[in-house]
């Protein structure tokens, strides 16, 4: 290509852009690249954050993680091998301060902590630090914000008073607590016993951290691994926080798939718009051939034009994508903001190239037709027409599939994504087709506008269905995230009565029971039921020891490994229906366990199976008497396993209760905690609000991506309307010469557009409603009653969107004098 031809191509591109001939292709590609690059940049930042922080995540090279104190021999051996050591204990507790009480995550650390990475203090002065000196605590900014505490003030944990001496800005092994929202308090491990907070039944995470040369660490790991007991895990960087990783992977895939819907729609728009471009340029190409352009010259001109267009659109899309990922990070706010590395803008180039390649895959085959246009077309317009050619070719679909695969980087997910999109598309097509058939068979005959509009839709059935598909996918995505989500939340809220318990008290000691009961009575609150809570580990089922490795399901593995909160009761809770086995009468002499049905299913436990639990070193064995169904959403105290009293009554236990605390009684609650500082009061409503806040932000981010989907759908709609605009102009010109008034023409077009909008709305409504029903009934087990707004918003939204997109086309059809149209069309 010589510079002159390139310059000519640039000029031609500019001329076509200016004349609006390439706008749809341009916008569609911008959307595709923005969706790709925005989500990819964001996902990449999260992924790198995981990688970067993984090393610091442990604050060590290796750690032993346990739900009971790590046996001494592990530390002894490590010391013998010359490894550096530190230990941490993490638990929940109430922190008391002048302003009240606050549930916190307390972390007691030993000297030497952190072995790797840095603990950074932001106040009183910025500096790196190790463990807090005895008698002092360091808190995070969230704690100050929640409690109104200031540096230098006093804070009480259990029986001990501490001075708040610093504010932690960076805590290495908490760096990946992306979703943690409970304030944190750091104290020195030597202060821990005096607090009296670690008692029977309290849940503590013990970690023994080790650091040293890689070889020593590997040797130690080999030595330690076979010696690990139940509930003890050895972890290095590669094992760190698998749940966070998997959650982030899922989120990433979800955003990736959401963006792919936008990309797929944008690509449809590109295919439609290119086709129209080619159709409209057949004459120009023939004229240029006639004026002496060679085939290769013509081909180069158009190819360069599209390459340049793709480059410019790709760059604009990349900039939009960069802004979009900033918005995404902003929307998710503190959930992800902490410690995200800066965006890898190099990725943008990759995305731009991919976007360009995809666009060319869709645009080049039709462009090739321009090269082959018969020159004689200048005299005979029917030559070289596109109308009988397909819309997209196999190469293009292959490119799209490749793009999808690259985007989600997982063959099976890509397959599911493609299959899901295909099924959704097929459903939309079938539904749209059925509705069109239905409309045609309506017994009553509405006016001319309606009849003619409907006829138009049916004549261009494929294009109509594409329009319905694109618009309904975009609309459906947004409906699910707005209306349906709100309905589900509403249904869930309504399922929780206003006086449902909103506080749990845990860690209640035996001798504190009467004190607490008296407190409730004094405050005029109903005295709640207290349940014993004893920690125990399942050892065997029917004599077969529990082998964690036997379970393939992640949930089953977690359940098999963890310690359960067991309880004993003489009477089973009335609100938990038995699904199998027999209730135990109060007077029964026989021992037995009652097991929650979900747990039983996961671990393969049946009525009559003999379970053995290890409770504080004692083995407790009994058959399973029955399986219970538990409604976990009722905020009452629920247990996986309940024993008959004879089994556990002798064990020392903590107690737990749940109750409704009217907001007027908060000072009373603070007073109680002050009197009994070892209690942990968990504010369920606060946690719910936090969780809701998180969901809200995540939904916002996803919604934002889906907005692109809707936008892409609108571009497809625009491209499809544009594709038939010349035909529409000609038809209306003919109608008008036959005596149709402007009003009648308007009615025809309004009917056609309103039908497309309404049909898309209906498909979107059915899809969103179906998804809402599935989520509600199958997942949340709540009755689903879609609001009346769903059809109103879906249909209204669909019609409005189509009219919005089609307005220009309507105006053009009404404005252009029919003779002019007929003359121009030749």
């Amino acid at each position, binding site marked *: 290509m010589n510079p002159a031809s390139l310059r000519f191509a640039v000029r031609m591109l500019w001329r*076509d852009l200016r*004349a609006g001939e390439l706008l749809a292709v341009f916008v569609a590609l911008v959307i595709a690249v923005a969706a790709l690059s925005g989500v990819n940049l964001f996902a990449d930042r999260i992924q790198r954050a995981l990688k970067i922080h993984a090393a610091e995540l442990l604050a060590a090279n290796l750690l032993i993680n346990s739900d009971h104190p790590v046996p001494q021999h592990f530390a002894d051996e490590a010391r013998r091998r010359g490894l550096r050591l530190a230990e941490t204990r993490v638990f929940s507790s109430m922190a008391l301060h002048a302003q009240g009480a606050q549930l916190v995550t307390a972390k007691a650390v030993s000297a030497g902590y952190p072995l790797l990475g840095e603990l950074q203090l932001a106040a009183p002065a910025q500096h790196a630090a190790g463990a807090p000196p005895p008698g002092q605590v360091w808190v995070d900014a969230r704690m100050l914000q929640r409690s109104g505490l200031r540096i230098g003030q006093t804070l009480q944990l259990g029986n001990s008073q501490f001075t708040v001496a610093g504010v932690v800005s960076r805590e290495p092994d908490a760096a990946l607590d992306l979703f943690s929202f409970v304030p944190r308090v750091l104290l020195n491990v030597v202060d821990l016993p005096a607090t009296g907070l670690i008692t029977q039944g309290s849940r503590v995470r013990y970690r023994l951290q080790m650091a040293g040369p890689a070889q020593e660490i590997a040797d130690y790991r080999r030595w330690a691994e076979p010696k690990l007991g139940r509930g003890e895990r050895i972890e290095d960087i590669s094992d760190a926080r698998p749940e966070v990783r998997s959650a982030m992977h899922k989120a990433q895939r979800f955003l990736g798939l959401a963006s792919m819907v936008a990309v797929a729609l944008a690509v449809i728009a590109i295919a439609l718009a290119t086709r129209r471009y080619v159709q409209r340029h057949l004459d120009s190409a*023939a*004229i*240029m051939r006639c004026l002496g352009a060679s*085939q290769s010259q013509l081909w180069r001109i158009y190819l360069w034009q599209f390459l340049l267009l793709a480059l410019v659109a790709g760059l604009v899309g990349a900039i939009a994508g960069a802004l979009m990922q900033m918005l995404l990070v902003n929307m998710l706010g503190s959930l992800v903001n902490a410690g995200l590395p800066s965006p890898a803008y190099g990725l943008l180039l990759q995305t731009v190239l991919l976007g360009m390649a995809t666009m060319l895959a869709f645009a080049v085959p039709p462009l090739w037709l321009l090269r082959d246009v018969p020159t*004689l077309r*200048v*005299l005979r317009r029917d030559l070289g027409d596109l109308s009988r050619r397909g819309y997209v070719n196999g190469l293009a679909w292959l490119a799209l599939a490749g793009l999808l695969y690259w985007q989600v980087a997982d063959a099976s997910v890509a397959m599911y994504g493609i299959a899901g999109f295909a099924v959704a598309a097929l459903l939309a097509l079938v539904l749209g087709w059925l509705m069109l058939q239905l409309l045609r068979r309506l017994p009553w005959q509405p006016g001319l506008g309606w009849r003619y509009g409907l006829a138009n839709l049916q004549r261009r059935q494929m294009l109509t269905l594409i329009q319905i598909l694109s618009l309904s996918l975009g609309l459906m995505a947004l409906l699910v995230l707005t209306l349906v989500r709100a309905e589900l939340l509403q249904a869930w809220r309504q399922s929780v009565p206003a006086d449902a318990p909103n506080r749990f008290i845990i860690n209640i000691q035996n001798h504190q029971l009467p004190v607490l009961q008296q407190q409730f009575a004094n405050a005029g609150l109903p005295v709640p039921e207290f349940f014993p809570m004893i920690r125990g580990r399942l050892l065997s089922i029917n004599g077969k020891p529990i082998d964690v490795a036997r379970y393939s399901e992640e949930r089953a593995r977690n359940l098999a490994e963890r310690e359960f909160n067991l309880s004993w009761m003489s009477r089973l809770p009335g609100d938990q229906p038995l699904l199998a086995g027999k209730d135990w009468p109060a007077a029964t002499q026989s021992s037995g366990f009652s097991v929650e049905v979900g747990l039983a299913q996961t671990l393969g436990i049946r009525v009559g199976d003999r379970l053995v639990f290890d409770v504080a070193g004692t083995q407790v064995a009994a058959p399973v008497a029955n399986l219970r169904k538990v409604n976990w959403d009722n905020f009452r105290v629920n247990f996986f396993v309940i024993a008959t009293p004879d089994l556990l009554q002798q064990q020392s236990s903590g107690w737990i209760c749940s109750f409704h605390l009217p907001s007027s009684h908060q000072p009373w609650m603070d007073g109680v905690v002050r009197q009994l500082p070892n209690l942990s009061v968990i504010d369920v409503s606060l946690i719910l609000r936090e969780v809701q806040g998180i969901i809200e932000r995540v939904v916002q981010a996803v919604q934002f991506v889906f907005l692109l989907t809707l936008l892409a759908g609108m571009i497809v709609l625009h491209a499809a309307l544009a594709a038939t605009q010349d035909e529409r102009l000609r038809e209306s010109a003919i109608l008008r010469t036959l005596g149709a008034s402007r009003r009648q023409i308007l009615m025809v077009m309004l009917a056609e557009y309103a039908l497309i909008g309404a049909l898309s709305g209906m498909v979107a409504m059915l899809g969103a409603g179906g998804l809402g029903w599935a989520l509600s009934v199958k997942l949340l087990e709540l009755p689903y009653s879609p609001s009346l707004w769903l059809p109103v918003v879906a249909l209204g939204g669909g019609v409005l969107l189509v009219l919005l997109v089609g307005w220009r086309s309507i105006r053009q059809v009404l404005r252009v004098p029919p003779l002019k149209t007929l003359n121009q069309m030749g």
Partner: protein
Amino acid sequence: MLPNHSFQDPRTPILQVSGLGKQVPFADQQLTILANINLAIAPAESLAIVGASGSGKSTLLGLMAGLDLPSAGSVMIDGVDLTRLSEDGRAALRAHKVGFVFQSFQLVPALTALENVMLPLELAGKPEARSIAGDWLQRVGLGQRLQHYPKQLSGGEQQRVALARAFAGSPKILFADEPTGNLDFATGRQISDLLFSLNRQLGTTLVLVTHDQQLAARCGRQIRLHGGELVTETS
């Protein structure tokens, strides 16, 4: 390279058609559209091809301009046999020696009047495309409408742009297909005046296809086609 015939004898025909025939497959048979057309046109001559609809006028024009290939015979433009050239060879010949005016104007809708006139010059790689095109639009009376798009121009104005475009490349031969067919009488008259006046000034050879007897009468010579055959020739 195209042969250079700038110093040719003025009596040597610029366009020579010999034994030209065109057949197209129709159903199972070959349909004859043109048969055995022989014709010679001298430089600066003007020739009208007349005949009823379907008589093969436009097909003949297309073959003479190298827009299509004949089934038989040959077409020589300026000493070059079109039927021996490739598609791109014919395009190159058109770029340098041939101009066109069509009934439906055939302007590129996405380009302004100026850009439409620039188009053949740009395709041929001429550096002064813009100023040449501007001059030509001045000459056809559209100096004030350079930046207008075809759809913003009347039919007569569009045909003027087409004339400017046709003459801008200084073609040796200009083919016009019903140049006034889409215009009202008065406008058609203005356009044909312009066409013939430019033709005279530049000494271009003019070959036009028309129904319009008055327009045909302004040409130096007329040939009549009937059923694909040349039936009469009048001077």
